[in-house]
């Protein structure tokens, strides 16, 4: 949320030797306009975040008398204290973390095993299995929320971690991302391991997975972010405040406070902090991971 930008200059794609002076000027003018537009949009995009942060540390009385001001002479953490007092925030952070980690681990293991089987081993129904899974990409999970809910209810898994986790594991996209990567592993490498007497499982564990760190981190990131931010599913299966995930818990606090905007913004900030921090730390990797899974 810090908006201290290094001035973005230099154009790597400007033609090295512009044939004519006029051309060069046009290029520079275009870059100036482009930069101006970009900076304007980027600042506009930061407004809601900065405004939330600014409002959350203002005294409640001040927000009422002058709601749209950005500054306060008396910064306070009162709104944050209210949120911690009213909700079960530590539980929600923990629940979100536990369910996201569980789902991510299960997805990465199950999806990479399946992708390895489809990519490297040979068996009778392999192609059929591949086509069946491919079809799954087109099934929008949310549309199936009713039977998924009924199944978990029948299994007695409402208000449990497993109830939040299990239906989110069959992530077909993850299988395809893994398979794409495994298809590119040189065949000789695997044949060599096999010739040495390694079982398929061992080949997967000791040869293929160590080579697959980039794709594992890409899948980890997009699954984790998706599960962490999922709203509809935990809203359905969790009603016990101590079992709620962060997004569901935060909306329940909103119902308690109604209008006081300082508290509203404080809960927004509290909800934003974990992933925004992670994003700041691993910006490059996250962006590449997400871009890599969508394309190619």
């Amino acid at each position, binding site marked *: 949320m810090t908006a201290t*930008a290094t001035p*973005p*200059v*230099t*154009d790597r*794609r400007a033609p090295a030797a*512009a*044939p004519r002076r006029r*051309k060069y000027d046009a*290029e520079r003018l*275009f870059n100036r306009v482009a*930069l101006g537009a*970009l900076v304007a949009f*980027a600042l506009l*995009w930061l407004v*809601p975040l900065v*405004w*939330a942060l600014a409002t959350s540390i203002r005294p409640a009385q001040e927000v009422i008398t002058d*709601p*749209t001001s950005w500054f306060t002479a008396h910064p306070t953490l009162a709104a944050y204290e209210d949120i911690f007092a009213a909700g079960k925030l530590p539980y929600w952070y923990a629940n979100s973390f536990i369910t996201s980690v569980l789902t991510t681990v*299960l997805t990465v*293991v*199950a999806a990479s*095993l*399946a992708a*390895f*089987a489809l990519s490297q081993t*040979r*068996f009778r129904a392999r192609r059929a299995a591949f086509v069946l899974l491919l079809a799954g*990409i*087109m099934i*929008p*999970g949310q*549309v*199936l929320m009713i*039977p*998924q*809910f009924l*199944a978990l209810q029948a299994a007695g898994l409402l208000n449990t971690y497993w109830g939040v986790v299990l239906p989110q594991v*069959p992530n*077909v996209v993850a*299988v395809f991302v893994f398979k794409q990567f495994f298809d590119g592993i040189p065949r000789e490498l695997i*044949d060599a391991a*096999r010739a040495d007497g390694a079982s*398929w499982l061992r080949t997967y564990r000791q040869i293929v997975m160590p080579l697959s760190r980039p794709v594992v981190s890409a899948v980890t990131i997009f699954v984790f972010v998706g599960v962490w931010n999922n*709203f*509809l599913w935990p809203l359905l299966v969790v009603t016990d405040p101590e079992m709620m995930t*962060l*997004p569901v818990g935060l*909306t329940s606090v909103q119902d308690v406070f109604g209008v006081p905007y300082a508290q509203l913004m404080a*809960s927004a900030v509290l*909800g*934003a902090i974990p992933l925004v921090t992670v*994003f*700041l730390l691993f*910006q490059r990797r996250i*962006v590449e991971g*997400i*871009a890599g899974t969508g*394309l190619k």
Partner: protein
Amino acid sequence: MATTTAPTEARGRGDRWAGPGMLLPFSLFYLLFLVGPLVYTVVAGFFDTSLLTSGLGDFAGLSNYTAVLSDDEFWRTLRNTLWFTVLTTVPLVLLSLVLAILADRFVRGRWFFRFAFFAPFVLPSAVVALLFTFIYADQVGLAHEVTTWFGVDTPPSWLGDPDWAMISIAAATVWWTLGFNFVLYLAGLQDIPRSVHEAAAIDGAGPWQRIRHVVVPMLGRTTTLVTVLQVVASLKVFDQIYMLTMGGPDGSTRSSLQLIYDTGFVEGRVGYASTVSLLLFVVILLVSLVWFALVRRAEKER
């Protein structure tokens, strides 16, 4: 099909089952939570299934289908959903394309743009809803304040006016998810070799011409991908609408997924809700199939 490779045969029986065995864990999840529920949805559409009684209930034939298709609310929520899809897809595809092309020209500041545009995308929908509850608040919100700067004395109630509510929600969604498309476009731009730019520049093409005639056409595949991912995501809208307006005012922002949620979970009419689910599924399926057809054609042209 006994075409196993030589080393496999040497290893005997256990090996034949390695492939299917490794496929098994994922397949179980897949069958339990996707295929099973899909089958249930199809079947329940033909029954008077209710959340209050156990089992499927009485056989209802096609009565759910006639009920849904003659229900004005079904068509209205579908219209709302399509309207939201148009309102979000157009800016989310075009604006992210423009911003990515511009950001691609700068090396040193790119991390800042990437942060500004992508950071909102990692926020939970609940946080986005909290932020925009305040931004769109009547009288005291930022949106109200800013419109008065432009000389509008009585700005509309952004979330309370049926004509504006969906537009406001769409704008919030554009802010929230633009970064994802932006990043996909940046990745697409990375794949355009530098020599292409240089060749076009030497041929005397100005920056604007290079973008129009070289860069945008070369991003064609990315644009198809971004558009379809966007349309499919927008057709499944629920979270931000549910939290910002609950589908109001007067149902003007109620989406198809919320109709499923309301009829299924609030009213307990599972049979009816299943029918709506299946129809929404068909709409999304058609969009995906059109995408596959387009991609395949584009790849053949190469």
